[in-house]
């Protein structure tokens, strides 16, 4: 079996195992509650009859492992359970929410990744110049900002003062694609600014790290132009750590998307998660949590595999 396939399958199996363990944690988090979740949710209306009825409804009268197997089995059939608040089938609305969130994340990634690579490359090319120092300062500052701060600044300048973009992103599938794109642009821009800094710094650091290698010195002594030295000789070896950071930042986007969705009232999975937490709608929270965890694990897996594949020494271990 080709080594690449073997490694991919190995990592995939590890990822699935982790996802399985995570699903157990998510399912059993309810058990940890001191006292009873029914008491906590019903609050004042908790008479013995309502408590019993509620427990039957969310299935607490059946033993824990039975519930877990049912839940897991349901997921494989696409049945994520019922929302406590609205009594609707969760799988009905989770699908559109998930695709919205992926659209937002994808748009942000599409803008951020090429920009980060280009700017990071330039920073490595002109290292220790004014451009590099400014970039260093700006990125260090921007990774310290909370996402909602960036979001509100963008709203203030691009929406209120300039009036170009709408402050609220009411996206729905019946809109034309260009209109959807337009409304999603501001939240995507926010996310871009958040992850751009990380990727830029890493690109710059990875390339600079390689620039002290002997073969780079040789290339310079040969008289190769600096741009070609970096792109043709240094960059291919820097791909490993760079793509690793890109994948990790994509995974971070999964989390950052929650706050941004709330600020822009974007109808995605993050907004759903936050709303359900406030309403203590546990089945929805569990469903969202497992979806987020799965995407996160998948992206981390990707980072892992790419960092192995890009290093031939790891790909063909002795």
């Amino acid at each position: 079996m080709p080594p690449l396939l073997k490694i991919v399958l190995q990592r995939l199996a590890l990822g699935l195992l982790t996802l399985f363990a995570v699903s157990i944690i998510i399912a059993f988090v309810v058990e940890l509650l001191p006292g009873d979740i029914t008491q906590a949710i019903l609050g004042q209306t908790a008479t013995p009859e309502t408590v019993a009825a509620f427990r039957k409804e969310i299935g607490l009268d059946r033993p824990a492992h039975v519930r877990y197997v049912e839940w897991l089995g349901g997921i494989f059939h696409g049945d994520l359970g019922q929302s406590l608040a609205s009594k609707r089938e969760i799988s009905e609305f989770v699908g559109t929410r998930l695709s919205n969130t992926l659209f937002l994340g994808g748009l942000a990634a599409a803008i951020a990744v090429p920009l980060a690579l280009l700017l990071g490359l330039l920073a490595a090319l002109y290292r220790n110049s004014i451009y590099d120092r400014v970039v260093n300062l700006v990125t260090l500052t921007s990774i310290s900002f909370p996402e909602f701060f960036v979001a509100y600044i963008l709203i203030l300048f691009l929406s209120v003062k300039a009036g170009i973009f709408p402050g609220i992103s009411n996206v729905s599938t019946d809109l034309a694609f260009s209109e959807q794109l337009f409304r999603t642009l501001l939240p995507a821009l926010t996310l871009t600014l958040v992850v751009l800094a990380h990727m830029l710094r890493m690109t710059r650091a990875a390339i600079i790290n390689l620039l002290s290698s002997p073969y780079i010195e040789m290339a310079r002594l040969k008289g190769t132009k600096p741009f070609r030295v970096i792109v043709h000789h240094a960059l291919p070896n820097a791909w490993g750590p760079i793509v690793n950071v890109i994948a990790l930042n994509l995974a971070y986007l999964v989390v950052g998307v929650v706050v941004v969705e709330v600020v822009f009232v974007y109808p995605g999975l993050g907004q759903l998660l936050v709303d359900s937490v406030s309403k203590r709608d546990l089945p929805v929270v569990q469903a969202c949590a497992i979806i987020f965890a799965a995407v996160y694990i998948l992206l981390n897996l990707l980072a892992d595999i790419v960092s192995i594949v890009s290093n031939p020494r790891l790909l063909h271990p002795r």
Partner: protein
Amino acid sequence: MFKTLLSAPISAKLGVIVIFGYVVVAVFAPALAPYKETAIVGASYELWSDEFLLGTDNIGRDMLTRLIYGARNTIGIAFVTVSLAFLVGGVMGMLAAILGGWYDMVISRVVDILMAIPSLVFALLLLTVFGTSIPSLVIIIALLDSTRVFRISRSAAMNVVVMEFVEAARLRGEGMAWVIRKEVLPNIMAPLLAEFGLRFCFVFLFIAALSFLGLGIQPPLADWGSMVRENATLINYNDITPLLPAVAIAGLTVAVNFVVDWMLHLSSGLRSDQQQM
């Protein structure tokens, strides 16, 4: 220590001054604030005036007072949380490095699995179950962050545990606690301190984000994250007042990041010195 401070780059010096300023405001909040934390002193959304230096918020509380008390609440809670995370994660990490074997393997697997869930999502899940009181907030975030601290402390301690002086200490018959305190801990202080700064930033932003989402520090306690959310409608009227708590958050994290950047620079220099020996 002052000598190293004086030789720091401008950004780090600025960072230290800013951090000191924040700490002073947090500690002396009752003395500095013009009004009481939860007192309603005027109409909603008053403009900046002599009576209310930064105007009032959405239900008429003085903005400046809320900002000052917010420093105390947010910074205080973040600090306690990070300290707890370091206590748990740091000790576990050092134990894992020293004991090795089964203990190390099991704990590392458990930590890996816990880290496989994105922290915001996990925190939201746990907050749904346990409610959003301050103790549960502190404990949940501390436990989630202790996993990251565990990683760092374990990898740093691993490098120290294989040294001869640790082996000599154990052969002498020193107990586990002694070895941790006197041999391992002093040698991993530098990366741990840098990590403390980074973790503080992260927890600080995390609590601000949770409060912004309405699931962190609850009203009427002043907190910068929830203040941003409460006064957000003012942005539509071209007023920058709601951004002030966000600027306060950003200011502290930038300052801490600058200082940590400088500290990492220092500690990596120190490590290369030790290797030359």
